């Protein structure tokens, strides 16, 4: 048990300075448009990061990383967050899977670029007719000698318009066989027949519908055995859900995407405090002294602390729901200014209260809905599959 402050070594302090310099030279946040979950850092910043091995800093230097430890990783995460850098360029979910199941050709030719961050990836699981029920995928891959021909449509392929590869879930047998006839591929997005069109979402972010029309790729891009895609994708999926997070060290136990939601939640609370600090009551006292405001803020802070203590797979659903609950409550608390966008006369703290109310509902959906998380949790508690 240990909750002490980490004494940063002199090397780590230098590292911090270096990151801050890199960021300030390359990045000016556009606070009018904070879609941290769905934007990506500009390519120029990514290449600077990549040059230093900071896209996957945990990997060895020879493998394209920087051989950094947990503390440095946590430093990067926190600093990016401080400067509102959308850090969604990591392929760390996929790298272990590509190492384990990828063809030798892929390991030689594609994996190095993915590891260094020069190449980016996106996830092609969901389809228009099936999201939660991924094993119902219908995008079809048909073998033709040494190549595969892919036809179908994916939905919600976030970053599908700006990624080099998609980790694609396909059907290679009878649909009725569900998870027994699925096969995974890493498809180059610049292959003829691949097309991404935008879907704009609440809060201003972009995701995509992707179309695959007679897309021909070499068998080298297949990941794992034919019809065993379900086992191939289970690992990255579990990692995405935050399963098996270790409770030692400096990373928060809420290690799933819930940690990101909790960081946004902190910004929301901070924005609400700034609102209260800059407003007065009719009797001239600060809104910070208004008992109703104090109660609303104290409850939000309580839930934020709860989120940081939600471990592993609990992190995402708890953070998503707490974020949504308090985005509502704080927007109302700060009404009417709580509805204003950034930059508008009278808006509060980068319009974060208004924008979070738009952003929050999605957090309970993407990466698996809160219901699916509860199903998974129930299974872990030894309860039977739902009726």
């Amino acid at each position, binding site marked *: 048990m240990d909750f002490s402050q980490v004494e940063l070594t002199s090397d780590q302090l230098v590292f911090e300075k270096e990151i801050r310099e890199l960021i300030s030279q390359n990045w000016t946040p556009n606070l009018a448009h904070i879609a941290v979950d769905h934007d990506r850092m500009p390519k120029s910043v990514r290449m600077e990061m990549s040059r230093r091995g900071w896209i996957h800093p945990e990997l060895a230097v020879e493998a394209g990383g920087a051989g950094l430890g947990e503390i440095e990783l946590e430093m990067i995460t*926190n600093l990016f967050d401080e400067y509102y850098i959308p850090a969604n360029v990591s392929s760390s979910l996929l790298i272990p899977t590509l190492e384990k199941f990828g063809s030798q050709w892929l390991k030689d030719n594609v994996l190095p670029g993915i590891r260094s961050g020069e190449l980016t990836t996106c996830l092609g699981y969901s389809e228009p007719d099936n999201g939660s029920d991924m094993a119902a995928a219908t995008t079809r891959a048909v073998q033709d000698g040494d190549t595969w021909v892919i036809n179908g449509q994916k939905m919600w392929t976030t970053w599908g318009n700006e990624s080099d590869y998609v980790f694609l879930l396909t059907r290679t047998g009878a649909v009725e066989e569900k998870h027994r006839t699925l096969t995974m591929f890493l498809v180059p997005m610049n292959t003829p027949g691949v097309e991404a069109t935008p879907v704009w979402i609440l809060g201003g972010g972009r995701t995509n519908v992707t179309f695959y029309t007679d897309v021909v790729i070499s068998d080298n891009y297949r990941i794992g055995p034919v019809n065993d895609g379900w086992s191939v994708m289970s690992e990255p999926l579990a990692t995405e859900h935050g399963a098996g997070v270790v409770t030692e060290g400096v990373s928060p136990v809420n290690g799933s995407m819930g940690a990101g939601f909790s960081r946004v939640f902190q910004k929301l609370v901070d924005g609400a405090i700034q609102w209260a600090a800059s407003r007065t009551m009719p009797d001239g006292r600060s809104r910070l002294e208004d008992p109703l405001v*104090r109660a609303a803020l104290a409850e939000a802070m309580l839930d934020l602390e709860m989120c940081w203590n939600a471990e592993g797979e609990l992190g995402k659903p708890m953070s998503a729901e707490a974020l949504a609950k308090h985005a509502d409550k704080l927007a109302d608390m700060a009404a009417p200014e709580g509805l204003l966008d950034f930059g508008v006369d009278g808006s509060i703290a980068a319009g974060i209260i208004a924008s979070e109310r738009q952003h929050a509902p999605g957090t309970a959906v993407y990466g698996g809905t809160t219901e699916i998380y509860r199903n998974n949790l129930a299974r872990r*508690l030894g309860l039977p599959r739902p009726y």
Partner: protein
Amino acid sequence: MTLVLRRNDYTLSDEQGQLVDMLRSLFTEQSTIDVVRAAEPLGFDQNLWSTVQDNGLLTISIPESVGGDGGGLVELVLAGIEIGRTAAPVPLIDHVVTMRLLSALKGTGVSIDALDWKAALAGDLIVSLAPISTWELGSQLVPSGAVAKAVVAFKDGAIILMTRETPAAQAQNEGCAPVAWWSPNDEDVLTTTLLEGHEAVDIWELAHREWRIATAASLVGLMAISSEIARGYALDRKAFGVTIAKFQAISHQLADIHMDVVTARNMTIKAAWLTENEPDFRPELAAMAMAHATRAALRSTAKAVHVHGGMGITNEADISLFYRKVSSWSLVGGGIRRDLDDISTAIDHRAQELVVTALTSSNR
């Protein structure tokens, strides 16, 4: 601005693990549901208390300098969780927290002559704490006040010790907790002022935080066992030809209960460690642990009752007993409203930290 990172390690040491194992088997064996029921309405079992005394549990979190074993608040929290798991009818938490407070006072040179120290250390004389220092009602409901002969409180800027020849009469309550009204103005009560001034405020404040954290731990135990009971029932009970655990309306409630248990446990452990090791860091964590444990225990035992259908609300169902205990154990300290009041001090702290930067585009 420099980055500040903190560790997040909730793991128990081997020794702490052994302590939990020992407490788990002791309370599971000795504090059976029959023992708990037989101890009602007072909510105290002398035999179990003697067992607690004989096993040296009253000194695990008392400094060595005053005759204890030198363990800390974290150990008390681990004990609190195990007590909660069996709703053990013993005032261990109130007694030990109060003894820690008195030990701290002794450490600053305060003499506590009004109390037979040896008897209190051994638990032959039970002491308790009056957690609400505002005294709106003149007298105060004291946890374990119906079994204690000495109660420490904070009143008008001073830490006071109230003693009686016999414990005060229990105030009847649904959870059958040994709570009682105590007042320094009561003619049966002898009141001594122990310490006044800033030091008194600090020592009291810390003791109050410890009480909240250790009490939160007992609620974690009550929730954890309620969760297990409800899960067992859901796997057993059939409706419409299937086990009710197959209905998501049931299994998702069990998942929610689980989330409450885990977060309440983690918050309590973290608050205990930080209060013990860095008492000046985020003092609101104790109130947060208590507020979350309170709301989580109230709602999750209510869900656990509901999962049982009609059986849940019968007095003979085990789950209804834990539901009742939660009301009394969680609310006697003054409820979430008071916790939120203390949590709100963190707002002022944060408001000072936040430089109003380019982030604020308001000119109004």
